[in-house]
């Protein structure tokens, strides 16, 4: 767990919740029925009493250990249920984790069910972010499943009084090949109430022997998604449920000075600056809200036009967590034949998940149950417990697989609003944010200013690299290039807008600045951009994805028109190794730029689900097109000016170029998460291709919000 770092730009996560898992052993079997339960204990194993032979046990039920990473139950019918705090938001975690368990337990995918993100049932988890499900949760569940397999073999060995080494598992059975006798998992778990805490070092199936992992596997329960049967958070309905709406201030930071209404038969809550209503249906709630007379006090605020000056002006000391000083910039610049200084900027952008923030809250006495779409169910539980001053044990957060997040659903805003209204109404209340609320009251990917100063020798060796990121963040701020003299810093600043995590965090901004600057250096010394990168990169995995991408792209081929441009970028973040190539058709006089083709090669270690990986890479590239080309939040004096899809252009069918993905499968290396990093190469590869076609260097994201002319 200790390797989870909060990158500084996860501004929304100001505090960590307390670790807590609420179920006792008795509650567990009461909830699940008999069988066997296997816990993976992350550390402090000594402190946990190993239990066995549950039927014989007497005395008080111990609480479950606090440092549980995962648990898994095999019922008397052989059904396997796995409990994890990770959530499914479209990235494929449910499918991948199911594969992992099925592989180690030697059962069919359909025999395994995952319970995810239900705070009463699953072990504590900080949240689903940072591409951590694959590198952290998948190994844990593998271990839990492998340990359960060993427990089952042990039960069969006891039953038959034979050496356990003579037994094998397969098809949901333990078999003794010698006698061809077998017992199903259900037969073995019948009547058991066995709890096993297992250490972190069980033997796992080697990736070269995988039969379920490593194979393209469709989304679990996919039929429910094409028939409309799946229940997303915004689809939850409870008996007597009301629909709530919240009165939004006219600007950020506004305070309520007076409020009055003549509403009858409608629940109205006024508490500080919060005003909300709840009634029978959404239209009635919207109409009720419109009749409330409220006066607000607003304060002048920084607008988009002053943004970058403001970020520089308010920048604080650099963040030690992200600082790197290597060699001496002075020496590095002295050794250079040429020097370059450039500034790059990135705008605020919105996650705009298609399912907006939504929650249903229901009180039973002083206990609160909330169904909500969040990447941090335990974080939302803590927020609710804090707001309502109740113990965390009295808050139950349930997270049905939701309509995406991209780092945007880490906070419990809608859950808190629904719970406030439900408490006053004495009935369950549903809140679904409108698109405008989603574009205004969520948080944004941080805007930023990045300054780069560098030196290069005429032979293409980079001698000096100074990099300052103001506000946008520190993710992947360190260059993967082999540069003897470096000074790299991240400076937080005062942000006029609420900001926080986003797919890949600031890795997109830092890669945009870095890979654009690298391209500028290559042109400065008149070297091919691919050769220039190869010369300055030592990392063998980056070299290999560069080879794969440039080969698939046919880098170096002759241009067939003057509008054609080619660009390349490499990326390294969260264990993912990326090379992206772009082809554009751009015309300087016409002011047009069309993205023709994108090729990405990606290596994230051993691939667990190749089709889902490909889907994630394609999706990240398409999402990346938005921030690269057109997406920007426009704001003025505390107001968002474009809080609609009609005014904020996200990628559509007609924006999508031909996309090709090359997967580099490294069965010999641990699997890294892959939902984020493929986004980082898109903007610089396209910008470099536009330069190649037109000679126009674009140093601000989005690059062509109004076409090429105005961007130049």
């Amino acid at each position, binding site marked *: 767990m200790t390797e989870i770092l909060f990158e500084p730009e996860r501004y929304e996560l100001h505090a960590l919740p307390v670790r807590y898992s609420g179920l006792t052993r008795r509650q567990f079997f009461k909830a699940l029925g008999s069988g066997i339960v296997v816990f993976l204990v992350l550390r402090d194993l000594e402190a946990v009493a190993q239990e066995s032979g549950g039927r014989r046990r007497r005395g008080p039920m111990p609480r479950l250990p606090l440092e549980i990473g995962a648990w898994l139950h095999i019922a008397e019918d052989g059904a396997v249920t796995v409990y994890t705090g990770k959530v499914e938001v479209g990235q494929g975690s449910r499918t991948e984790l199911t594969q992992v368990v099925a592989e180690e337990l030697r059962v069919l995918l359909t025999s395994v069910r995952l319970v995810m993100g239900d705070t009463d049932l699953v072990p504590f988890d900080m949240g689903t972010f940072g591409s951590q499900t694959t590198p952290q949760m998948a190994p844990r569940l593998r271990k839990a499943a492998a340990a359960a397999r060993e427990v089952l073999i042990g039960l069969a060995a006891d039953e038959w009084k034979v050496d356990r080494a003579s037994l094998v598992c397969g098809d949901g059975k333990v078999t003794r090949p010698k006698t061809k006798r077998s017992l199903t998992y259900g037969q073995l778990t019948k009547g058991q109430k066995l709890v096993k805490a297992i250490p972190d070092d069980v033997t796992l199936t080697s990736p070269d022997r995988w039969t379920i992992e490593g194979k393209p596997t469709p989304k679990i329960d996919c039929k429910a998604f*094409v028939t409309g049967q799946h229940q997303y958070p915004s689809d939850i309905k409870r008996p007597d449920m009301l629909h709530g709406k919240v009165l939004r201030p006219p600007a950020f930071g506004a305070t309520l000075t007076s409020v009055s209404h003549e509403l009858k038969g409608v629940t109205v809550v006024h508490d500080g600056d919060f005003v909300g209503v709840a009634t029978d249906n959404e239209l009635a709630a919207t109409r009720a809200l419109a009749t409330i007379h409220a006066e607000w006090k607003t304060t002048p605020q920084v607008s988009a036009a002053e943004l970058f000056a403001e970020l520089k002006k308010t920048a604080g000391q650099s963040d030690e967590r992200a600082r790197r000083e290597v060699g001496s910039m002075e020496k590095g610049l002295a050794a250079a034949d040429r020097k370059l200084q450039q500034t790059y900027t990135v705008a605020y952008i919105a996650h705009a998940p298609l399912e907006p923030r939504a929650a249903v809250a229901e009180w039973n006495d002083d206990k609160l149950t909330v169904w909500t779409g969040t990447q941090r169910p335990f974080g939302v539980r803590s927020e609710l417990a804090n707001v309502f001053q109740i113990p965390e044990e009295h808050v139950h957060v349930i997270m049905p697989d*939701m309509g995406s997040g991209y780092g945007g659903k880490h906070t419990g805003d809608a859950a808190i609003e629904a719970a406030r209204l439900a408490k006053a109404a004495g009935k369950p209340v549903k809140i679904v944010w409108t698109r405008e609320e989603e574009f205004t009251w969520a948080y944004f990917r941080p805007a930023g200013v990045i300054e780069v100063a560098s030196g290069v020798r005429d032979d293409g060796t980079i001698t000096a690299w100074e990099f300052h990121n103001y506000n946008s963040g520190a993710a992947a701020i360190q260059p993967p290039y082999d540069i003897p003299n470096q000074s790299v810093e991240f400076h937080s600043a005062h942000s006029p807008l609420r900001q926080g995590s986003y797919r890949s965090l600031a890795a997109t901004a830092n890669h945009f600045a870095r890979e654009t600057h690298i391209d500028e250096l290559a042109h400065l010394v008149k070297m091919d951009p691919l050769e220039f990168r190869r010369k300055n990169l030592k990392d063998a995995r980056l070299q290999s994805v560069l080879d794969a991408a440039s080969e698939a792209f046919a880098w170096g081929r002759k241009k067939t028109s003057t509008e054609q441009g080619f660009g390349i970028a490499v990326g390294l973040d969260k264990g993912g190794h990326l090379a992206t190539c772009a082809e554009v058709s751009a015309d300087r006089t016409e002011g047009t730029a069309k993205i023709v083709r994108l090729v990405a090669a990606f290596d994230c270690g051993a691939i667990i689900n190749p089709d889902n990986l490909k889907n994630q890479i394609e999706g990240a590239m398409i999402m990346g097109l938005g921030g690269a080309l057109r997406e920007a939040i426009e704001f003025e004096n505390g107001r968002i000016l474009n809080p609609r899809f*009609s005014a904020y252009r996200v990628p559509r069918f007609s924006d*999508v170029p031909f996309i090709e993905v090359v997967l580099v499968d490294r069965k010999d290396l641990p699997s890294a998460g892959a939902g984020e990093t493929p986004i980082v190469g898109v903007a610089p590869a396209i910008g470099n291709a536009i330069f190649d076609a037109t000679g126009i260097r674009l140093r601000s994201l989005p690059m062509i919000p109004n076409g090429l002319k105005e961007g130049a």
Partner: protein
Amino acid sequence: MANDTQLHVNGAKLHVPADPERSLLSVLRDDLELTGTKYGCGEGQCGACTVLIDGLPQRSCLTPVGTVAGRQIITIEGLEQTGKLHPLQRAFLEVGAMQCAYCTSGMIISAAGLLKRNPNPTQQAIIRFMDGNLCRCGTYPRIIAAIKLAAKEKSK
């Protein structure tokens, strides 16, 4: 205000006591529990709320329920016929044309409208027709492939 609207939804005749100014989307989801049709933007820009009205894809978020009395409404829940998935539903599964799948209902319903009008659409025709449907996860290339596959299956 509670007028009684007669709705034909997925082949069933229903009397719905709902304010006629409420959106068809809200009535489908909140009163009839047909939650497969989704809210995405409320301004007809994302297509998540698409239903077929007399065979044409329409944005139910912008359609007051009072205006569709007696017209034939098909939602994603009504596409499956006699226990058999619609060719588009099968094709989306076959291709894996989804991630979070929140847009999927609207995509399938819009594509059903397209295939009704044009049983063998070109890539360009698909892009033109579907451009009002958003997939934030970016599964567009897969959705195009699924529509082509369904068209091929239907023409068999």
